[in-house]
């Protein structure tokens, strides 16, 4: 295949590795940033480290890793401290403090770089957007292998972050969840915060040369956010975010090679693509997540609305039958249209419900009208029983006025099961009718489902 042959492990493999390492390193820390509601800190820190880098370059006159990291770490802590200072003393909102600090530091860095443009060859664009495509070219020798320098630094940073998260797990957990308690226990939340900031700054710098600023920011927030929509358990959260991050890196790189070709271009920014893929994965999770996804929430709501409507239909027909006993001359036939109008539902919903009840044997259809079967009547009776018991309870115990109880009972009846009904009955001292005078149906025990030989539990009232 034409495309496959364009893939050179020597080149693409390293690019991929850089992306994956950056993703994993960032998402490990990113989880705690998101939990602490500091998601924007990644962006802030990655801008703010510029003066640190510039200082390192200016002083050492070279682009060696160690001074860069030192400069970045120092500025990272400085950013955190300045932000905290402004927040605490100036009582400025967190976001604004961050905004003030990082834009100022960035501008300072910019001035420094431009001033020293003659002395040192440093392109701000390179700092910010990286040049991942050049990653494989700058290598060092590790254990006899030719490894790009960037990979080595990224690997070390990833390991350090991993170590931090593992060893400091409970401290991170505690200070993120309840910093006040941490303080009263003698663990300075501030120290944990500064350490986290330092590592964020270092991770950002380590990634700059290869993937640039934007990927770090993306990987610190997006995988963690997506993971939080998938799981509610912290260890899984951390693991999933790393996986999602790595996946984004892989998909991003593949897309960066293949997608532009579809439009007639040669290639495009790999880092940008990786960030975009992370976003896409987030979108997928947001919609499809089995626990928190939009689809599932929608489905749940619909299901609930549906079952409530179904209950209403049964209860309505039951009450209609009651009235007919008292006033046999009522001629109204229970057609679908009439039910739909009375219960204010859409035609589709009503048709579905009626279909469902006929299929499950709770309703019979005689011509155009519907009647309850034996089973249907039992189910409806229980609903009406719940409703009327609630009405009695609300009047007796909650002292509600009798004109208000119907609305409440309407809502509550759908969530009242057998044991609840028994409790209600006891609380209201076994009433025979509700406050409006309507008779309360007797409890119908599940005769069919209780095993033979066992007595059925029912309170049969005469």
């Amino acid at each position, binding site marked *: 295949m034409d495309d496959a042959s364009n893939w050179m492990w020597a080149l693409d493999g390293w690019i991929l590795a850089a992306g994956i390492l950056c993703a994993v390193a960032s998402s490990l820390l990113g989880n705690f940033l998101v*939990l602490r509601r500091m998601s924007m800190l990644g962006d802030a820190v990655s801008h703010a480290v510029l003066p640190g880098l510039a200082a390192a370059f200016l002083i050492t006159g070279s682009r060696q890793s160690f001074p860069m990291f030192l400069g970045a770490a120092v500025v990272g802590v400085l950013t955190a401290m300045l932000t905290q200072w402004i927040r605490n003393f100036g009582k400025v909102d967190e976001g604004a403090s961050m905004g003030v600090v990082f834009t100022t530091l960035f501008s300072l860095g910019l001035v420094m770089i431009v001033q020293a443009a003659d002395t040192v060859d440093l392109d701000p664009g390179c700092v910010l957007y990286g040049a991942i495509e050049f990653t494989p070219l700058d290598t060092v020798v590790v254990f006899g292998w030719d490894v790009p320098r960037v990979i080595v630094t990224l690997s070390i940073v990833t390991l350090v972050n991993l170590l931090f998260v593992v060893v400091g797990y409970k401290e991170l957990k*505690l200070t993120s969840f309840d910093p006040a*308690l941490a303080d009263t*226990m*003698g*663990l300075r939340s501030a120290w944990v915060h500064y350490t986290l900031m330092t590592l964020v700054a270092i991770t950002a710098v380590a990634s700059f040369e290869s993937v640039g600023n934007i990927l770090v920011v993306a990987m610190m927030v997006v995988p963690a956010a997506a993971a939080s929509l998938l799981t509610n*358990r912290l260890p899984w*959260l951390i693991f999933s975010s790393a996986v999602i991050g790595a996946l984004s890196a892989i998909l991003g790189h593949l897309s960066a090679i293949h997608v532009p070709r579809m439009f007639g271009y040669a290639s495009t920014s790999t880092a940008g693509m990786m960030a975009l893929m992370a976003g896409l994965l987030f979108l997928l999770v947001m919609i499809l997540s089995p626990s928190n996804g939009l689809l599932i929430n929608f489905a749940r709501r619909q299901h609930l609305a549906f079952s409530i409507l179904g209950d209403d239909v049964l209860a309505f027909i039951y009450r209609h039958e009651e009235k007919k006993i008292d006033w046999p001359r009522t001629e109204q036939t229970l057609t679908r249209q009439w039910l739909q109008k009375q219960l204010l539902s859409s035609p589709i919903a009503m048709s579905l419900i009626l279909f469902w009840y006929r299929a499950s044997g709770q309703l019979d259809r005689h011509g155009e009208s519907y009647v309850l079967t034996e089973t249907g009547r039992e189910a409806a009776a229980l609903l009406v029983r719940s409703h009327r018991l609630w009405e009695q309870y609300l009047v007796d115990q909650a002292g509600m006025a009798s004109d208000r109880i119907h609305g409440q009972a309407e809502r509550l009846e759908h969530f009242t099961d057998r044991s609840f009904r028994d409790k209600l009955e006891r609380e209201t001292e076994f009433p025979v009718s509700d406050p409006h005078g309507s008779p309360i149906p007797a409890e119908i025990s599940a005769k069919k489902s209780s095993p033979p030989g066992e007595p059925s539990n029912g309170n049969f009232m005469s």
Partner: protein
Amino acid sequence: MTSTLPLRIEDLTVAYHRKPVIWDVAFDVKPGSLVGVVGPNGAGKSTLLKACMDLIPVASGRVSIFGEPYKVNRHRVGYVPQRESVDWDFPVSALDVVTMGLYREIGWFRPVRKKHKQAARDAMEQVGLADLEGRQISQLSGGQQQRTFLARALVQDADLYFMDEPFAAVDAATEKAIVQILRGMKQQGKTAIVIHHDLQTVPEYFDHVVLLNMRVVANGPTEEVFTTENLQKTYGGRLTLLDQVTEAMRRRDKGE
């Protein structure tokens, strides 16, 4: 002799921004007492608690915990904050939260061991949450959340407890559980200072009471201090509130 007092507050004045919020607050707490702190909204009750724990700075005065400043004896103090102080969406289980009370004992950067988890479980059982240990806290009801905090405080095995409105908006079962815990603590000789909002239950739950409205109106044994006159001084002319309380006191007098 004074060093055995769990809490001694002398001349405490705390100011926010410019305005003194509480001033000249002074009282002692004897070991084994259950002290209720009551007062109207904005009277400075939470401020008092936080000032005792060095969570906010103090303009003048002194707080002594077992004779020493808080910093020295902080390991003997447990804190049950208001429920609103944390984000209950956090991805941890109830057991996790309770175990947090042991982190200091476990030691920083050391792992949580089985025995710690077991201690946490025991505490959860004490508050009646035994079967909820694996439940994520976002799925707990208000009363269960409160009991989780309580279990966390128990597991700290402190000698002095500060509690900020533990009875606020909890169900009857949780309320009973909390009262039982408090009484158990008292039997063990522990002391609890509890911010409370429901005047009706003060005589039943607390043997000592502090009436606070920016300064201490009165403090001492509940029977002596919890009088209509003192309440009037604390709460002012809110009739409905007084009505409720006089009713409660009437009931108490009649031995109901």
